[in-house]
């Protein structure tokens, strides 16, 4: 077993152990904290399909995160209030079933990602960063000023949506649901990374000309990756909405996009568990420092700076050493 794999297992175990320990100690909040870590990690794993594998630095992934959240929020608010969302061609009253919401969140995020990706992928490098930002900003400003679902004030979800057979209102249950989804996404990531598709995607990141010259058109590969990536981030958005029982445009903001990128870099760019390590670390810092001092952002900044300067390749980079290239 490689060192990196051992660290990955350890991280997965730690994340699982945290809420269990919390439960044993009666510290319920740490379950919520762990859930948040898992969900942010999931969002970042989503982004990692595009960024880590494809080198597509999307500075607009908050759009999908937020769309996922809003899909969950909107569908469940209609279900809760028993008001139809639309009545043609059939009456649709939304849903408060998590599987339905997840599916819808992933589907709609993917559907939005498709045209955005198709246009954005005409550009490359920093231009890609900025054009994805542009699309996210459009959606953000739309959400802020669109009154139907609360605008900038956001939309609350009155009761947590349900999952057949379990009680999601129990914090641990909801954590487990999120955790399992995170593991599933990680497994998918690992599979895709090592597959033919993943090989093409990664080759495109390293050298687009080379990829095309062997007969694989980079555009379609990337568009597919971007869409998958958006769908997973959208799924995370739906979960976060349920955790917070609230969605608002701040989930769509550029700061959120930036934060997702930061999570990946913090954990280790291009690593399977990079987003997980990053999310765990970031949420932990935010939580611990926030409780210690009012100037927590200053110290958070210092710590992050320390990580970039002294931990080459992020947290996993430091622990596991140089990445091995297949």
């Amino acid at each position, binding site marked *: 077993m490689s060192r990196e794999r051992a660290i990955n297992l350890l991280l997965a175990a730690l994340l699982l152990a945290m809420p269990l320990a919390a439960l044993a100690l009666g510290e319920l909040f740490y379950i919520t904290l762990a859930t948040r870590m898992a969900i942010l990690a999931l969002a970042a794993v989503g982004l990692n399909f595009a960024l880590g594998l494809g080198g597509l630095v999307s500075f607009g992934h908050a759009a999908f995160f937020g769309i996922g959240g809003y899909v969950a929020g909107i569908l469940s608010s209609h279900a809760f209030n028993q008001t139809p969302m639309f009545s043609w061609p059939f009456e649709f009253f939304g849903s408060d079933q998590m599987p339905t919401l997840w599916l819808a969140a992933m589907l709609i995020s993917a559907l939005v990602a498709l045209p955005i990706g198709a246009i954005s992928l005409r550009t490359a490098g920093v231009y890609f960063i900025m054009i994805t930002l542009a699309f996210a900003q459009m959606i953000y400003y739309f959400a802020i000023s669109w009154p139907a679902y609360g605008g900038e004030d956001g939309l609350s979800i009155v009761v947590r949506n349900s999952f057949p057979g379990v009680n999601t209102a129990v914090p641990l249950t909801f954590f487990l649901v999120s955790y399992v989804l995170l593991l599933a996404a990680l497994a998918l990531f690992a599979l895709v990374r090592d597959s033919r*598709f993943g*090989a*093409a995607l*990664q080759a495109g990141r390293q050298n687009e000309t080379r990829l095309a*010259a062997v*007969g*694989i*058109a980079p555009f379609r590969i990337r568009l597919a990756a971007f869409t998958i990536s958006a769908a997973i981030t959208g799924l995370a958005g739906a979960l976060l909405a349920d955790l917070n029982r609230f969605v608002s445009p701040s989930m769509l903001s550029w700061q959120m996009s930036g934060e997702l990128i930061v999570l990946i870099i913090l954990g280790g760019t291009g690593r399977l568990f990079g987003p997980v390590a990053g999310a765990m670390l970031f949420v932990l810092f935010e939580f611990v420092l926030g409780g210690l001092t009012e100037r927590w952002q200053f110290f958070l900044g210092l710590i992050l700076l320390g990580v970039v300067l002294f931990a080459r390749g992020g947290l996993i980079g430091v622990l596991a050493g140089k990445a091995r290239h297949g």
Partner: protein
Amino acid sequence: MAEPVLSIRDLRKSFGALKATDGVSLDLRPGEIHALIGPNGAGKTTLIHQIAGGITPDSGEIIFLGEDIGALGVAARARRGLGRSFQISSLAPEFSALRNVMLAVQSRQGSSFRFFRPVMRDLSLTEPAMAMLERTGLASRANVPAAELSHGERRQLEIAIALALGPKAFLLDEPMAGMGPEGSRALTGFLDGLRHEAPILLVEHDMDAVFALADRISVLVYGRIIATGTVDEIRGDAEVRRAYLGEQP
């Protein structure tokens, strides 16, 4: 005479005032090595790029296996069977030599939209790729990332990738460049055999190799072909000597 595999008709391309390709017509026949030589900046690489699809010509036709491929993209042309090597090595730097070659094998086998099967455990990818590395003498470096190969080794890898595509025609842009005497000699022998698999359009400044290999030579100067002929014809051509060969021993 057999139908040409690749046929270029009156191709033109200008960069501003510069006519980089100025009405070039050229055939590549089955089984031949057709060398394209000419001074630096004559437009050889530009011509290769146009055939491979990286640059769109201003006018003219490119017929490959009886089909006009002028409207196709780079990847589509590669899949039709145009295998190329780059004058300045172009590799996936983080991938090992083996994975660089596997990429070509994967493309040759069809769709890259396969999400689940790990490539490194896929013998249908690794075995042909390894075979190509063996043929080009890079087998011992199979697991070294391309970025860590020496210059000459990268040049060899370029060839291995082009081979792995199993193309119906090769476009090789200065394959000898950067290879030591030993490498050049080996590659010369290698290309000599390769022409039976697919014809080669060979751009090369190494005249020993060109004279040893070429069935026909075209000389490109300022975007125009000034002469086409056998080795002996070109060697004897006064203008070619003046413009390109210089004082050959």
